[in-house]
Every structure is written in structure tokens, then in C-alpha cells.
């Protein structure tokens, strides 16, 4: 069983890293032939960095729109961030000081994450417009994340697992050293779904993570009059015609 998990996580990591890298490479390679930032837009690169920063950290555009979605979505993502940071302790020895410091918050961030997800799920089910645009996968993502969070919280607060053993398994795995895991049900569920999430990430809407950074309506500088912007294929077409 532990061997299965070892292999599973190696495969999942490979799929996640290679899959994402391929997508990022595809986005980076594809030109944006026209200047299409949503205006008013920043007029220099520093402004663009700030715009993206506000989008990533505060979900600025979403905030302009629907406060409830913003609230739940932001709770979920902030919780997720803290939880993931807290999880880094399973992968390093000794544990980096900042990661040690957030441990107490991280523990409760799990609740924020699950409450946020539950709010998003309720919205998806009860708001007719959101229900209309949802396919099964949209519900499943929320369910998967809720179950990951719930099983994690179970381990933190109800049926503790042997975290020392979990840690030595994953630190070992980083050096391709196949260890053993405590075979508790919540941990099995937790890890299986985490592996599933990693496997599906590059093929799903979770591509919103790289997508945000490559979105021309958000990452372009508003300077078309000052600087000529031309894509390689457009240049080639021009040269051919003149």
C-alpha cells in the first residue's frame, strides 16, 4: 500500500509539473497580436505588475462584481494558501522558520477553506445563472476540495494520524526512498484525492492559475501609440504583401 502511494505521488508530481510546464510554454509561445488590455489599463510595466498583484492577492475584478462570490472565493483561496504553506513541514527537515510560525494559523485556515468552498457550492447549486453554466466537473472540484479539507481537519482535530511517520515518508520520497505510511482511513482519502487533484490540474479549469498571468486583457501595457506592437506572424504577412 505504501509502495502504491509512493509510485502514485511520483507519477502525480510528474504529470503536474510536466503538464503545467507544457501549458505555460504554450501560452508563452502564442503571440497576442493586438493590444487588448481592458481599459483603463496601466501605462507602464510597473503598473501591470501592480494590477496583477491586486488580482492575485485581492481578486480585485471579482470584488467589483459579486461580493458573496468574492467573500467565499477569497476565504477559500487564502485558507488554501495558509494550509499549503503549513504543509511544507512534511517536505523539509529542519522546518523553515516562517513555516513554523504559521503553523497555529494554518491549523484553523483549514476551516476557512472548507467554509469558503461550502459557500461556493451553495451558490453553484442555488443561483440559477451559476447552476446553468455548471457542468458535473464544476461541482466535483468543489466536492473533491471539501473532502480533502474535511479529511485533513479530521486528522488535525479528531483522529490524529502519525504525522512523524507521514513526514519521514514524504521527506524520504523526495530522495526516492520508499518509506511506509500510517494506514489510516482519513489519511488514505486525503492523499488519494490530493494525488487526483495533482493529476487533473493541468487538464482542467485549474489552469486559471497560469491563465491569469498570461491574460492579455490584464497583463498588457497601455502604450500602443508610443510603441508599435506586432506579432511575428503579422510581420511575416506584412512582409509578404509589401
Amino acid at each position, binding site marked *: 500500500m505504501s509502495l502504491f502511494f509512493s509510485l502514485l505521488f511520483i507519477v502525480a508530481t510528474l504529470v503536474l509539473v510536466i503538464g503545467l510546464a507544457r501549458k505555460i510554454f504554450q501560452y508563452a509561445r*502564442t503571440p497576442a497580436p493586438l493590444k487588448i488590455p481592458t481599459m483603463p489599463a496601466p501605462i507602464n510595466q510597473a503598473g501591470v505588475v501592480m494590477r496583477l498583484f491586486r488580482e492575485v492577492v485581492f481578486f480585485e475584478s471579482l470584488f467589483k462584481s459579486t461580493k458573496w462570490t468574492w467573500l467565499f472565493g477569497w476565504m477559500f483561496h487564502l485558507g488554501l494558501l495558509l494550509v499549503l504553506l503549513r504543509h511544507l513541514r512534511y517536505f523539509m527537515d529542519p522546518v523553515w522558520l516562517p513555516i513554523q510560525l504559521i503553523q497555529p494559523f494554518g491549523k484553523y485556515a483549514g476551516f476557512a477553506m472548507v467554509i469558503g468552498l461550502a459557500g461556493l457550492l451553495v451558490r453553484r447549486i442555488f443561483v440559477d445563472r451559476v447552476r446553468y453554466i455548471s457542468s458535473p466537473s464544476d461541482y466535483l472540484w468543489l466536492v473533491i476540495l471539501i473532502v480533502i479539507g474535511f479529511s485533513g481537519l479530521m486528522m488535525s482535530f479528531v483522529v490524529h494520524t502519525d504525522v512523524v511517520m507521514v513526514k519521514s515518508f514524504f521527506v524520504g520520497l523526495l530522495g526516492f526512498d520508499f518509506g511506509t505510511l500510517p494506514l489510516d482511513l482519513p489519511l488514505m482519502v486525503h492523499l488519494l484525492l490530493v494525488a487526483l487533484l495533482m493529476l487533473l490540474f493541468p487538464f482542467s479549469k485549474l489552469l486559471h492559475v497560469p491563465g491569469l498571468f498570461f491574460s492579455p486583457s490584464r497583463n498588457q501595457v497601455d502604450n500602443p501609440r508610443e510603441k508599435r506592437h506586432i506579432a511575428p506572424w503579422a510581420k511575416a504577412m506584412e512582409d509578404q504583401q509589401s
Partner: protein
Amino acid sequence: MAKADFETPELHEYVDVPAVTEGTMAHLSPFVAKPDHNTDLNFPPQLVEDWHARALDKLDDLRSRYRGLQVYLDSCVKCGSCTDKCHYFLGTKDPKNMPVGRQDLLRKVYRRYFTFAGKYFPKLVGAEDLTRDTLDEWYSYYHQCSQCRRCSVFCPYGIDTAEISMAAREILDSIGYGQKYCNEIIAKLNKIGNNLGLPGPALQDTLEGLEEDVEDDTGVAVKYPLDQKGADILLVTPSADFFAEPHVDGLIGYGKVFHEAGVSWTLSSYASEAANFGMFIGSYENMRRVSLRIRKAALDLGVKRIVFGECGHAWRVAYSFLNTLAGPFDFLDPDYPVPQHILEFTWDQIQKGNLKFDKSANDDKVLTFHDSCNVARATRMGNKPGGQFEIPRNVIKAVCNNYVDMHHETIGERTFCCGGGGGLLTDDLMEIRVKGALPRMTALRNAMEEEGVTHMAAICAICKSQFTKVLPYYGMDMDQIVSVHQLVSDAIILTGQDDDEDGEESENEGEA
């Protein structure tokens, strides 16, 4: 389809987000292009036999050339933020007019043929086969989008449904299923030089008529030159400015401003159109072909600057794309941005004190301003972000005493489209035009009742035409829509003007 066989929505204090009602607009599609209009634009004359393969090839081609399209197709998380932002959804209740609903029409096909999840688990991710019905659905709903970009403001990733609509229309054109209105107009422009098909002599006539009118009115010989070599400024303006009310009053205003600024300027018969419908059909090639006319006119006439008249999407193509499509403009005067908006020009002259106004000339009106969608969300004026909102208002306030804004959620970057943009300004789409105007009509009506507004100024030929048609459906008056330069024209005091002898000529020449 000409007569109203639909109900105009009622105006209430607020536009309530409607309950989703499927299929309310499925019946509406614009007329299909005639074969020779398609071939004029290098598209197949009619729907090709192998449309299935060719449509997919085109989609694949486009997503490899437009990063926006690829990223937008992948990134949507179905958060629902955009669902209540489209004026066409608010006016029709049809969920396929929700921005994400509209995107999904293309996205479901993208997923089915180009993604792992869609190939192997189509049901799970809502992927669907491309069928003949899909094409009709695309044709219908991608022509119910005015490419106004309101949705993109509120999407956490900036997903711009306008880009998706353009791509879908490009795919449809590439298999010979183009829209009559847009393709006919582009073909006409390529042949004659403007969307209305007005040949050079007709333009000459009109302009001479304007010169007479202005002289009768003011006693000042303001010139409206055409094809004048060696002029400093080439003015490119939407062809509606040459003949229809209230557009033409704007053109009269531009001429008066140029006259008072003391600059030499000219129109061109070869490039007598600011509008560029190549953008609406998402065709880079056609958009470029149209743009190159302006470059050629500027070179042939030997001008130093290019200024654009009042038009929304035209200003988008001009401001954001012209340098890309038809640049570099290194043969023009580097001291001025290329191109400039007429409002940038006028505002600059006002700030320099070169223009004199009698604001009371507009005292019969209480004004408000409609931010045109393309100007607001796809361009800028001046050198600060947001200048596209400030400069038009500054100019209006400089020439009018009574100005109020409409509700803040309906202006600026959140402005609602007039309902007729993006190639929808045709009678066969009247139903969606009227219904899509609901949010703007509501805001205007509220401003009329609460603030006593009488007129709404706009800086877009499409907005002006659309409102002229649509205001009466909502029980308002078609004359309530005015051009910004019409207001300028009414208030400006020309040097040496009959009814106002204010001494010797001011020597200010601007910095031309």
C-alpha cells in the same frame, strides 16, 4: 422582420437580474451574406461542404495565433461573476446571452476536440460535438454580442467575450457563413472608401453645403476641405458624419474647432471612413486592409498628423491597433500622438485658451454623457489612464452649464453598451438592439426624472444611430441624443462672427 413583433421591455427604477429563461432569443439571427460580399473579403461564397473539418482547423489556427483566445478558452472557472453583466442577458433573460454562456458555445467544441478531458469524458466537462446546429447557434448568439467588453471588466481573469465572438465570427466567415451587414459594408468600403458608399463627388457636395450653412449662420467662412494636399491634419471620421443627424452637427463642430485653432486640415475621399468593421468580424487581414487606406491617404496628401472624429470602435482600432496594422507612422510629426482623437485636440485648444464659448447657447439643455463601450474599455485619451472618461466630460462642461452624470454603475469602465455595437446595427437585429438598450435606457430615464436631464451626448456614430432608433421604443424622443461636437459647435464663438463682435482676431495659432 422589419415590424416590431416583440415586446419592448418596461422601464423600472432598477434593472433586475432576470431569472434564467432558456431559448428566448434562439429565433434571432441576422441575414446571411451574399456570395460576392464573402468573396470580396476572401471568404468562400457560401457554406462549404467540408465545414466541419475547416471550422475545427480554423479554431486550431486561431488559438495558435491569439494567446487571448487560448487562455480564455482554458481559464474560465465558471465562477459566475460575469453572468449578470451583459446588457443582452439583462434585456432578454436568455442564458446564452450571459457572457460565459456565450463563450461556452465555442468552449464546448474546443473542449471536445482539443482537450484531454473533453475527448475522453465529454459529459463530465460539458464538451459537445460540432454539428450543423452548433453552427446556427454560433451564428445566432455570436451576433447578439456587441463586443463591448463589459464582461471582461468583472471577470477575475479578464476573459473577454468580445475576443471569443470575434474568433467565432472569423470561423463562420472562413467556412462561408458570414453576416450580410458587416461583410457588405466592408466590401463597400473596399470599393468606394466608406461604409455608406458615398463617392468623392457626393462628399464634395455635402461639404460645400456645410460651408454655406455655416457661413449663413455665422457669417464666417469656415472651410470643410476634401483631398487637400499639404494640409497639416488628416481628419478621418465615420461616414455617418457626412449626412445624418445628429452626426453631421458634430462634423460642423470639428470644422469650427480647426478653424479657430488656425490649423490646416482636410478630409480624404479615399479614406472617408473611420469605422473599421474588420474588427467586428475578427479578421486581422480585413481590418488591416481597411486601415491601410488611412496610411495611404496620409502619405498621398502629405499630412503631418491624423485626427479621428467621434466614433467608438473606430477609436479602438485607431488608438489600439492602427500603429500595429498600418504603422509605423514615422513619416508624421513626432510631436503628436498618432492618431489623435478630436476630443484630445479640442480639449488641448480649450486649455490653451484658443477657443471662446458662449455656454448659454446650450442652456436649453441639461446634459448627460454616454460612455461608448469601446472608447471606455478599449482605448484611452490624453496621457493618463481614464482620460477617456475625463476629457469628453471636460469638453462638455466647458461648453455647457448644465451637466450631470448618470448612475455611477452605468458609466466609466462599467458603462452599458448602447445595444447596437459590434455589427448589430441592422434592422434584422432590431429585437436584440431594443432589448439590449434596456440598462442604458433605464439609467437615462432615471437621470431625466431625478436630475431633469434632457439630452444625452455621445461620441460614437453607432451609439448615435442606435439611440435615434431605439429611444422612441422606450417612449423617449429621438432628438435627445446629441454629438459632443454639436454642443461645441453651438457654443463656440467664431472670430469675426456676425452676432458677436468681440474685437480683433486672436492671434493664437495653437502649436500646429
